[in-house]
């Protein structure tokens, strides 16, 4: 509860900051401090320390997994704010409001990772979505931003409608909105249809094919800084919500559910990877790759066992950190095509090396966190004892994914480019980026560093 309440409060604080503080660069410092506090209190909550004694039993339930997931999200956001804070300032005029919205999103994330009631799921998802519609469109004069925002909004509301229909059907069948009341085994068609509709809607939120169409356009159109946030924290939070609902319960969707999810996974991997191969713009490539990564995270949903949850946590951390890192660098560049990266290794050796590490992590190369993330996902499926074919398809697509990630590395290291228009970066930025890379490598060598937190 600490996270939810505090993040709402901090959001309000940021709004007031916007009124009373003139200095724009102060916002991000305040935001960073707030995030640090948030992180602290969230961790404190894992140790059963609550500031507010509120009985939320009927709506929210806080457990290790959700809290750790929150921590990962908050930590990622912290890194994000630290790395990209300056870029946020450049977008639009309402900087403080942007920060406020980010905090509101975190509030939604907190709800999504701990709801026990479909009402809270609905509210959580909406609290996440509405600020994002706004952030996407926050560059008001940018037609791409307008377009992205409109698309996102229309399709988002549409999927909300679908989800509500599903919730209504579940209610009709079970008479309650409590998640735990949902039957483990399929009882009625109504309930099955309801689950299915919710599945569609959540698939939309985490951009699982064939409900992914908004993703590339929106990620591409949104201001780069917010794409970074959307593609990482928000997406993994969506997965947390997803797995919370379907954990051990997807049997209620009907007999062919396994097949359905398998199909969705294959489609997601195929759409994401194949389309990413063809992209010219790194930003758009990352958008497609985020779809592909979502395909991998769906493995957790398919397997729904302990390994899957651990893996999802690791995946969230690995994926978010690496993507935030890349986007932070991307935001400094004018030319976002692959050619734009040509020769980066020469002009910015350290940054190029770090970006390479992030890309390696995304590609799932050993000794990076991305490897273990993928490893856990695959392992989770293998542990179900069937569907080895799915795993094989997964790895083959992972190999394809290496293709487009390595294209960036190639551009940076092996191709000669003209002088790169690269916004000046501070030393702090570099060290921070280095820190992120270190975290990724540490998780790649010793993933237990994160996962053991689940069990102590």
């Amino acid at each position, binding site marked *: 509860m600490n996270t939810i309440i505090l993040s709402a409060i901090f959001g309000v604080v940021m709004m007031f900051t916007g009124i009373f503080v003139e200095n724009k660069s102060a916002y991000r410092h305040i935001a960073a401090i707030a995030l640090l506090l948030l992180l602290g209190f969230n961790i404190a909550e894992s140790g059963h320390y609550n500031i507010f004694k509120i009985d939320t039993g009927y709506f929210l339930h806080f457990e290790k997994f959700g809290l750790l997931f929150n921590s990962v999200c908050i930590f990622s956001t912290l890194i994000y704010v630290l790395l990209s804070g300056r870029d946020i300032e450049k977008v639009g005029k309402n900087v403080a409001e942007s920060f406020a919205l980010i905090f509101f999103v975190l509030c939604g994330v907190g709800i999504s990772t701990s709801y026990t009631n479909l009402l809270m799921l609905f509210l959580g998802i909406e609290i996440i979505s509405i600020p994002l519609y706004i952030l996407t469109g926050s560059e008001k004069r940018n037609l791409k931003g307008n*377009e992205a925002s409109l698309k996102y909004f*229309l399709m988002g509301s549409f999927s909300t409608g679908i989800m509500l229909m599903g919730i209504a059907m579940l209610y009709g069948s079970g008479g309650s909105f409590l998640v735990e009341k949902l039957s483990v085994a399929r009882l009625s068609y109504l309930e099955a249809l309801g689950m299915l509709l919710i599945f569609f809607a959540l698939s939309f939120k985490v951009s699982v094919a064939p409900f992914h169409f908004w993703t590339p*356009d*929106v990620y591409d159109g949104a201001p780069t800084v917010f794409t970074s946030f959307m593609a990482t924290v928000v997406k993994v939070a969506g997965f947390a919500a997803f797995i919370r609902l379907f954990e051990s319960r997807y049997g209620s969707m009907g007999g062919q559910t396994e097949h359905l999810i398998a199909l969705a996974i294959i489609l997601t991997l195929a759409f994401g990877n194949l389309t990413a191969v063809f992209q010219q713009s790194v930003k758009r490539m990352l958008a497609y790759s985020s779809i592909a990564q979502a395909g991998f995270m769906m493995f957790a949903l398919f397997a729904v066992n302990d390994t899957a949850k651990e893996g999802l946590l690791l995946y969230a951390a690995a994926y978010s950190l690496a993507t935030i890192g890349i986007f932070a660098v991307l935001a400094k560049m004018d030319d976002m095509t692959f050619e734009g990266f040509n020769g980066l290794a020469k002009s910015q050796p350290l940054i190029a090396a770090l970006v390479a590490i992030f890309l390696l992590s995304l590609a799932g190369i050993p000794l990076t966190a991305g490897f273990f993330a993928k490893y856990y996902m695959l392992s989770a499926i293998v542990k179900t004892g069937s569907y080895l074919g799915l795993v094989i398809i997964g790895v083959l697509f992972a190999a394809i994914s290496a293709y487009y990630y390595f294209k960036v590395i190639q551009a940076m290291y092996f191709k000669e480019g003209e002088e790169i228009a690269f916004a000046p970066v501070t030393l702090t930025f570099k060290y921070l980026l280095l820190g992120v890379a270190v975290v990724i490598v540490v998780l790649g060598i010793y993933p237990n560093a994160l996962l053991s937190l689940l069990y102590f």
Partner: protein
Amino acid sequence: MPIQYYITLSIVLFCIGIVGVLTRRNAIIIFMCIELMLNAVNLLLVAFSKMHNAGAVGSDANPTAGVDGQLFVFFIMVVAAAEVSVGLSIIVMMYRNTHSVDVNFLNRLKN
């Protein structure tokens, strides 16, 4: 009234909303159709709420059974209102920039 009637009615309304979303290009109309979908859901929820309440009528076991369904409708309305404010402002913003509400007017983002 048999619950099937209500279910059918709301599904029909819901699907009309979907068809509207699919067949119109005016962003405002599309948005309205989405509102129509939400209302279909609301109707269904209320009907279910009364259905679940049916068992409670005449027994003291749980007189308020089904009340959460109606409360859910209340929250949907809340969210819908919030969405409308954001959505309409987005549409207005777009109209200001392009003088069009055609959703296909802007399609720089593709492929």
